[in-house]
């Protein structure tokens, strides 16, 4: 087991492990970078990913105080995104608690391992509801059971329950936590998933087992479900076919870009 002591589990890495231990090993232990195309056609996939990122940025800017109308004027080059934005303006924040934190990251520890969750929006009322909002730009709304089983749902609710006390004023009772997926490309349709103490215990057991499985793995086995390989960049290494078709992928913002920021103040005179 070569996982660094300070390794932080995210929803992405946990989902990778749940889908395919081999993928987890390649990406997080061997740190093998494999720049194959995720989905075809690649440029269309890229466009969707960038649209999703830009939408999230718009929400962030709005919550920082930029007027919605000002932001709307910037969308003249992307009618689809403009439609999403209008949807957000009408419904995005409706009914949510007033104390709002955008793009906040929380962390907690489980079995000596760090778990981190980066939230699009946390909306809380001290003593009242604690709502996790996640904007989705997917073209279709999946079944609730699918979302409930996603590691994002499992991890985000668990981490908020364990690490959100300072935002709430006290430990957040699981029953007060709710996760809301907001599908802006589907007219702002929402899918809400509640939480409970019993679910927290189940989730904790699930996470403990998953972490134990990763840490105890002597061999990181390749998934038998080849449908999970369609959008995996390691599929050529595993001889598992070509890039999956984009129309089967409705999770454009789930395939995260590697998080990297180049410090511009490193720039001085450089050979070129």
């Amino acid at each position, binding site marked *: 087991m070569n996982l660094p002591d300070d390794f932080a589990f995210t929803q992405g890495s946990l989902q990778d492990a749940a889908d395919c231990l081999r993928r987890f090993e390649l990406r997080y232990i061997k*740190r093998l970078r494999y720049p*194959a*195309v995720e989905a075809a056609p690649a*440029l269309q996939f890229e466009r969707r990913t960038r649209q999703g990122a830009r939408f999230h940025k718009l929400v962030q800017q709005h919550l920082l105080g930029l007027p919605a109308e000002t932001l709307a004027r910037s969308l003249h080059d992307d009618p689809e995104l403009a439609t999403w934005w209008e949807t957000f303006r009408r419904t995005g924040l409706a009914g949510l608690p007033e104390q709002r934190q955008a793009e906040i990251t929380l*962390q907690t520890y489980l079995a000596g391992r760090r778990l981190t969750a980066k939230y699009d929006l946390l909306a809380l009322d001290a003593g009242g509801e604690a709502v996790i909002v996640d904007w989705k730009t997917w073209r279709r709304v999946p079944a609730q059971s699918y979302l409930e089983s996603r590691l994002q749902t499992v991890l985000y609710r668990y981490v908020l329950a364990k690490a959100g006390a300072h935002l709430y004023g006290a430990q957040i009772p699981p029953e007060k936590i709710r996760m809301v997926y907001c599908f802006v490309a589907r007219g702002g349709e929402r899918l809400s998933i509640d939480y409970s103490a019993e679910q927290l215990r189940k989730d904790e057991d699930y996470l403990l087992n998953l972490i134990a499985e990763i840490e105890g793995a002597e061999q990181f086995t390749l998934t038998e479900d080849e449908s999970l390989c369609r959008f995996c960049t390691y599929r050529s*290494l595993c001889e598992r076919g070509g890039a999956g078709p984009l129309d089967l992928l409705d999770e454009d913002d789930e395939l995260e870009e590697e998080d990297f*920021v180049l410090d*511009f103040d490193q720039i001085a005179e*450089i050979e*070129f």
Partner: protein
Amino acid sequence: MDRPEITCDYLGNARASSRLASALAHIAEQIIAFELAAFYNRRNRQRQIGKRILSGKLQIPLTPEQAAIAAAPPDTKIWLEGIAGSGKTSAGVGRLLRLLELGIPAESILIYVPQRSLAQPYLQALRRHSGYSGGQVAVQTIGGLSLQMVEAFWFLIAERAGFGHPHDLPNFLSLESVQYFMIKIIEPLVNQRDYFNSVRIDRARLYSQIVDNMNKAALVGFPIDQIAPRLKRALPGGVEQGHIYDDAQTCALAFREYCLANNLLDFSLQLEVFLDHVWNLPQAREHVRMRYRHLIADNVEEDNPASHRILADLLRLCQSALVIYDSDAGFRRFLGADPENARRLQGFCDAREQFADSKVMSDEGRALGRALAGQLVAALGGSAEDDPQPSLITEAHRYHPQMVDWAAGRIDELVNGQGVSPGEIVVMAPFMSDVLRFALVEGLRARDIRARSHRPSRALRDEPAARALLTFARLAHPRWHMRPAEFDVAFAVMTAIDGLDLIRAKLLTEMLYRDGRMLPFSDVKSGAMQDRITYELGARYDRLQTWLNNYIEGAPTEALDIFFRQLFGEVLSRAGFGFHDNRDAGNVSMNLVDSARNFRWSLEFMRRYEEGTDLGKDYLEMVDRGVIADFYLRDWIADNDDCVLIAPAYTFLLSNRAVDYQFWLNVGSEGWARRLYQPLTHPHVLSLGWPAGRTWTDDDESAMNRQTLGRLILALTRRCRKEIYLGYSELSESGYEQRGLLLEAIHGLLRRSAADNINGKARV
């Protein structure tokens, strides 16, 4: 020492040219060096014993003076100063943990550093102490903060900042994109008006110095139209030199005008927009005030006046602060570091503390540092009673390879003879040439010692995987008329096909590369030749050739990054091909993809304003011109093995890490003290503290060189726990005699020791 000559025949001087190339590499490596601290600090030994702060699992060992800093009330603003290795950052880490223990939300704490990697001790302390639940501490640099803030508040300031399309998104330029647009805008001016006609250095360096001038203006805080007046006032080099500065000024203004017209932001414009517009927005101020209530600013001496201005405001706004200043440092001056200006931040603090004693170096090491530095600058020297010799080991050689062999032999004694951990050894030189690096790595490998080196100045295009991908890109896009040379095709085929050596690859290419296209293996008519190549390799070749031909006959994309990814995923990374399960090839390919994609995105953005760009072709042309690829932190983070580090001196220094043993090689080199030759810019004259109207003299140059080297020596010795080995060869790598300032200082020291011996003072 003479003032650096601004010469017309610089390129014709082989020796100077060699020095120039080395210096360039040196600078590029310095820039990357900061990123290395991430993993070095992880192993930084903590020798302090004393109190443990914080209950439960959040514990680090602190001395009483560190503990006092950590435990100061949470509404205190403290200025902490001390030499390297005196435990300031550990005190800062203790302070951070203390704030968290008091229940202060982590996201309200800002760690502000000149370079993200310098925040690693803080982040690692948090990561290593399981039990903390809550938010995450923010880490910012002036670059990161300005980027985030300009992007977030763009639509509120774009119009008043003078951008041509205030309702469109901004386009933050990567270094490559800056170079591309600089060439596009300035090259016609240079060609038409015969600019810089008396400066004989590479065009690329000219442009990068123009960028450097603009960055300096933004960091220091003067308008870019004052670049030439400032340089001319301080560096009067006659009419011709004045023209050079005027040319540089005109080019900077032209580039700025183009950026404003097209929503492009290079670093200098990003910073100016941040400081002049975003930072004045009430919404932005309020966001920062609400977000960051507690400030820990480390290594402020390595930061620039723009950062100091922001820090001064943050100090006014925040509830508590700890500002940490490293004495005798300020090594990022080439990036605008201004240690004198940093001192002004003291005025915003309630308390001032000083750590005087090193927790790292031995008495002998301290004596050596003082004695050597004292040879250069009297004020840096120590007591006459100091005896530097016990920590100093040196041996003179006639030839450079002998010195390298000596160093490898000494390291062998340490590692294999005395059981020293390789990670406790660093080998330094002012510049780390390919030759020196190779000789050292091979010398150590022969002794079964693992070594690692960082050569960030090595261009991506020089990596075999990247070379192969770039060659295939040329083959796959015949309409660009950039047909690759036969040898390049052979090299690419060899790299792409697992098991194919260069000889057979050349044979294949000679037979099958015709008129810019690759023919199928079946076109090899000779059975003997087919046998020699083997059918297995021939089949792999066919798979590659078929893929390329299908691509050409299909609808080739102008998105070169997509082409790279398709070729990688569908052929090169498959079993039987050279990139399969190949970590280096994967990393290089990914970097090339990132580079080409960022370039494409910048140019796609421009298409709404002007036509005439051919994305893929333009990228390849930039590669041909020698544009380096962006470099990426993740490559460096991954490299954390316990190996001997081989690095330029500043690379090691700015990693802010201590080791037991240091090897200083090429101690005769002038590179230890001499400033980079820069005919268009000047780090001191363009600094905040340079008095208007004062002329930069030879005496200034000499004093600056001595001061720089003196401080470098102190800094290195303060990061050494046991011994320093000095490697000297009479003749340099290029065969020239070496008489640099460091050698002069060493000679002075040895003469003094010899005199002390005669007088019975020396202890050895």
